[in-house]
């Protein structure tokens, strides 16, 4: 799976957790999930579970801390897919 494909699928998952303002604006790979997209910490866990379901992977606890931006989350997903 290409990086752009992962980005597109991840965007759809993230979108579910954005507030009204977030849903009306775009975001990029450098966007921070907490600080820029304002996804709260409980929903970050939800997002990780969504990612595991979507990509059929398991993200271990130490990897959670690496998923800070959209781009770093893509890195984690790609590392698990390879």
């Amino acid at each position, binding site marked *: 799976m290409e990086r752009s494909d992962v980005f597109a699928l991840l965007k759809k998952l993230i979108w579910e957790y954005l*507030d*009204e*303002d*977030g849903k009306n604006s775009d975001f990029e790979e450098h966007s921070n999930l*907490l*600080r820029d997209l*304002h996804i*709260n*910490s*409980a929903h970050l*866990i*939800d997002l*990780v*579970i969504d990612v595991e*379901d979507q990509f059929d992977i398991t993200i271990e*606890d130490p990897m*959670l*801390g690496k998923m*800070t931006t959209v781009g770093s989350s893509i890195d984690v997903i790609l590392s698990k897919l390879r």
Partner: protein
Amino acid sequence: MNSERSVGNDIVFALGSDRTGMVFRNNFMDKVLTSYEKSLLSKVAEKDTFFWMIWSAKEAAYKFASRFDPQMKFLPKMHSVEGFHTYRYPLSMSKRLDGFRVSTGLEEFDSVSFLVHTAANRVTVRCVVIGEFVLGVACSCDADFKNLLWGVKRIPSDRYAVQSKSVREFARRSIADHLGINIGLIEIEESLYCAPRISVRDTDSLWPISLSHDQFGVCFSVLLE
């Protein structure tokens, strides 16, 4: 233990549509709870409420500790509950909070007290239920809770921009009222990259403050002298 003073808090809108039952979703609990925390949860009847108490205790402890280490990340299992003590079990999560509640200390409230271990600290977190909100407040020791000014407020919007502005204004108003001074003399500098700071009459105060919001609720906690 760091000798500097700190406080951390967290609020959860526990009756929100995406909160009720969330605890039992897939492997959510496996992602966030240690074995010990799961064993605690297995012994209580009101699992949803108790889960959000543990969660808010972890978040509050994280905020307490991140004042000393702004690079710290919130990893739920790293901020682990090591013990708890029930003062009076608070489970009355049926009434809607109308408006707001501001108080000093937490003694008059039913609360659960957790001992939470973080990377650098071991802190005491007291959790209370106010209306449909679970609030957790972390202090370094029991004595600090006597110097606590805190408040919870229901807000009409769950948009982040509204939450962020509302919690700051709520805290400014409450601190000004407590001190008996004009709200214009209180400023709260909030940053996404470090703990918020209070200034009174253009002078930085030494009072640590923590601000939180979740959906339709905001809360603040400030440790006065």
